[in-house]
């Protein structure tokens, strides 16, 4: 068996006394589209933040292509080929749409901290960024400040920035949150298109998106994964049904 | 031994004075995220106002009125200046308070001129409280200690035991929630800013007669106050207290004991070079502790920042 793209073992996280993530073991294969679902407050975003070292885990390990990420900073993890988007749109609002994407290309294309290259005269950067813009259908918005885009467009740009660097593991945190149906369809198609052949891990609330996209699904409830498997299996799992139903009942009180 | 006691008292006075400033600064910072650069300017205004009032109504009325006036001014600055700049972000806020500090200094020079004001210790406190081995401790210093400790206890009481204090503490961490609960958060901010500046004003009233009332007084103390809260950890009230006392004692002891760098270096095994005049390091050898007393806080700050970036009591954050 080949090494999984991402492997979590015994991952735990506590904030003070509250244990938010209580021991997660999960293995996601190469080129797999994996969705993490679960009721509100289950710790999905926390799990994302643990993987990408936004917070340090209390215990447990995260391995990317078999290599431990312990002690690495977010930027170092990114350089290893793991890229993520955020639940709350996280772009550079004052820069143009084009520049947002170009910034995402700089490190992967090897420009690093160089001060002897002029970005405007680099064909690979300009064309690379334009290609991404074309992919996410934002070429027409190219020279507008990113902050002036519509919400759906900003989400699309966020995805564009996330995939631009060519990372092979993409993590999307609720890419369709707060969108209308048409916008959701647009983003879903977009995700399908841009993550072709890559490992995708996404947190999502919208079940139609999840079942349309994911090869496998994990259900996270109160910091634990209660089920992992093919969409149809997960849907049929009584524990999942109970967890969702239970959470829905609790929410009513 | 006696000298140590005298220095302990002197350092305590300096430290508590620093704390009166750093406490207000810390409160304002942790609530609004604004480091009020003009904080020490309000301290200066306190001294000048108290001087002006003391001419007409005597020291005690100055002690009572000057902090109130300064507090009202401070609240006005928050309401009409800072709140406006707030929308542009933290850096413009900081620049705003920096400009305010410049302007207040110019304003003070405009009104009172560049010379030191004859603002003196009141007659009734102008005696020696007691003496230790020939070193007399003036009553005013004891008075300063009492006032600042009183303020500290009062502040602690208000913050931990009263409803207003609860709301303030909650507003520190969850301004949105507190606002949703029906409390007027902008008003709380204005109030905290007013109280913080009033505290600074009070510090000015009692420090003016001892440290001198002149246009540069804000700047002399101001940068030390900033250093204090960086050392203590931005936003930590306990950190501010500990750092204030630490700096108070550090500078006082450095000034009163003449420790020479040459002796320290000899002590750890370096021998004094023969030809001091030509050595590039000659200044290092001739440094004495009173000489560097005033920069010790800065050195301490740099060391703290290198080894414990969040400050003594600061929370580590990413």
């Amino acid at each position: 068996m080949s090494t999984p793209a991402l492997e979590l073992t015994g991952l735990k996280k506590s904030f003070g006394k509250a244990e938010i993530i209580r021991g997660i073991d999960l293995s996601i294969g190469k080129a797999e589209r994996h969705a993490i679902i679960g009721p509100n407050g289950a710790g999905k975003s926390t799990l994302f933040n643990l993987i990408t070292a936004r917070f340090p885990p209390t215990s447990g390990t995260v391995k990317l292509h078999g290599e431990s990420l312990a002690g690495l900073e977010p930027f170092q993890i990114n350089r290893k080929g793991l890229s993520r988007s955020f639940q709350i749109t996280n772009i550079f609002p004052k820069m143009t749409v084009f520049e947002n994407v170009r910034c995402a290309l700089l490190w992967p294309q090897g420009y690093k901290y160089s001060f002897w290259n002029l970005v405007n005269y680099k064909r690979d950067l300009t064309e690379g960024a334009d290609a991404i813009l074309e992919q996410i259908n934002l070429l027409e918005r190219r020279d507008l400040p990113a902050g002036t885009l519509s919400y759906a467009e900003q989400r699309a740009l966020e995805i564009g920035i996330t995939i631009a660097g060519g990372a092979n593991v993409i993590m999307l945190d609720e890419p369709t949150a707060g969108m209308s149906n048409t916008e959701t369809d647009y983003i879903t198609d977009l995700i399908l298109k841009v993550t072709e052949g890559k490992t995708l891990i996404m947190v999502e609330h919208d079940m139609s998106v999840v079942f349309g996209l994911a090869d496998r699904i994990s259900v996270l409830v109160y910091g634990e994964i209660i089920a992992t498997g093919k969409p149809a299996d997960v849907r049929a799992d009584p524990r999942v049904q109970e967890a969702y139903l239970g959470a829905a009942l609790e929410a009513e009180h | 031994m006696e000298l140590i006691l005298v220095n302990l008292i002197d350092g305590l006075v300096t430290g508590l004075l620093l704390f009166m400033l750093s406490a207000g600064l810390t409160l304002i910072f942790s609530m609004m995220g604004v480091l009020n650069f003009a904080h020490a300017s309000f301290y200066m205004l306190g001294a000048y106002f108290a001087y002006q009032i003391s001419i007409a109504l005597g020291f005690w009325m100055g002690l009572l009125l000057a902090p109130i006036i300064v507090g009202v001014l401070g609240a006005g600055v928050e309401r009409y200046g800072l709140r406006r700049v707030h929308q542009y972000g933290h850096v413009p806020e900081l620049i705003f308070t920096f400009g305010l500090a410049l302007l207040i200094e110019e304003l003070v020079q405009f009104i009172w001129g560049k010379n030191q004001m004859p603002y003196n210790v009141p007659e009734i406190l102008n005696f020696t409280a007691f003496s230790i081995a020939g070193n007399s401790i003036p009553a005013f210093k004891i008075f300063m200690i009492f006032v600042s400790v009183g303020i500290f206890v009062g502040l602690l009481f208000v913050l931990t035991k009263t409803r207003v204090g609860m709301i303030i503490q909650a507003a520190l961490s969850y301004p949105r929630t507190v606002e949703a609960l029906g409390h007027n958060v902008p008003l709380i901010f204005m109030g905290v800013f007013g109280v913080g500046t009033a505290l600074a004003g009070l510090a000015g009233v009692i420090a003016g007669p001892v440290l001198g009332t002149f246009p540069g007084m804000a700047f002399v103390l101001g940068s030390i106050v900033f250093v204090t809260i960086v050392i203590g950890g931005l936003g930590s009230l306990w950190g501010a207290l500990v750092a204030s006392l630490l700096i108070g004692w550090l500078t006082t002891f450095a000034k009163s004991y003449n420790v020479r760098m040459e002796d320290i270096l000899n002590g750890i095994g370096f021998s004094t070079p023969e030809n001091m005049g030509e050595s590039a390091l000659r200044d290092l050898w001739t440094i004495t502790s009173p000489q560097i007393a005033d920069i010790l806080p800065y050195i301490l700050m740099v060391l703290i920042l290198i080894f414990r970036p969040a400050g003594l009591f600061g929370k580590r954050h990413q």
Partner: protein
Amino acid sequence: MTDQITTDPSKPSQRMRAGSMTITVLPWVAGAIALAVMPAIFTSNSALTIMNQMWITVVFALAYNMLLGQGGMLSFGHAVYAGVGGFACMHIMNMSDFFAAMPLPVLPIFGGLFGMGMAMIVGSFSTRNAGTVFAMISLGVGELIAACSVIIVAFFGGEEGISGDRTYAMPFFGNEFLQQIDVYYLTSFWVLVSAILMYLWSRTPVGRMANAVRDNPERAEFLGYSARWVRFYSFTASGFFAGVAGGLFAINYEILTEENLNTASSGVILLVTFLGGVGFFFGPIIGAIAFTLLQTVLSLQTELWAFYAGVLFLATVMFFPGGLAGLLMMHVPVFKLGHARSLVMPYLKTLLPAAIGLLGLAALVEMTFHFRHAALGDDEMTVFWTTFDTHTILPWIIAGVVTLVGLGIARATAPSLKEAWSAANTAPPVTTAKGGAA
């Protein structure tokens, strides 16, 4: 090779690039010509001195804006890097053998290197954070080094500072820089070179990422860049150019003292930069020119010039956070729409009375100051070429009326200016747009 030159106008990236060369080169050529011609227009020695001061401030302010405007780092102690660079240059001037083998125009590079070295040392721990913490550290370090200047006498020269003589350098094509005009051209050369280099820096990967880190450090981290290192590189580069400014100062004045390092100087450069506008590359240039002129003119006229500068600064922060450059650039859309002319009259109607009112207010301020602080018996003062007795009531009434009337008219006409402004900023209706597209 040929396919690199062909441009496809349908591709926006190439459309951009075709025009951008002339747009980027033109201002620099204009600047170079202006620098070269200025001494022919303003020939007096004092004018040269002022211009030298101006250009040095330009370099320093641009270096400062690499931090504040482009990197989002507010420094309260940036004079240290200019100062250290300057002091280093003074010491080099005093190393007779070494200095005699070096042409003077090379000296600012050493200033830059020392400024950069200093910035690397301080930056190694100060750039961990931006924002308030960075500002506080910069203040503390600034104070520390300024205080050291009286202790480390060997380097900073104590209270007298360090002085030297630039003419001991190796003659540069026979020129020994005895004349003010020679120094002017040396300074101008360095201003141009530094400004171009700093502009180019903002176009490099690390320069672009400085903007990204300023706006959203977290996102930048998830794009593979360490926010801290990006800040560190910006800080180092800024230290270099500040050091160059310090070196130019050393060449011009041939003396450096504690004043070049202290927080007051750091405050001035913040003021200059912010006044000019941190949002645009050319902002600090405008700021440096405007501030130097203001300082020169006002400080001759009034003791209170620092007070006015403070008021101006505070007003800028509160009402025009974009500074002068922001104000100018606000008008670009109006010009593009061809509506600039419609704004002239409303501007005159509001700004002229406002200016007169402010002058009246300034007169009141001056009179109050004179009334309070003039020596006993010295009742006469001169404001705006008029001499009068401040202890009589008439001048107060006149100044008061001028102030009230001026500001009153400005206030009354302000709404119509606002209207004219929004009208000028509105794009023409669709019908004209159709004609334009054909």
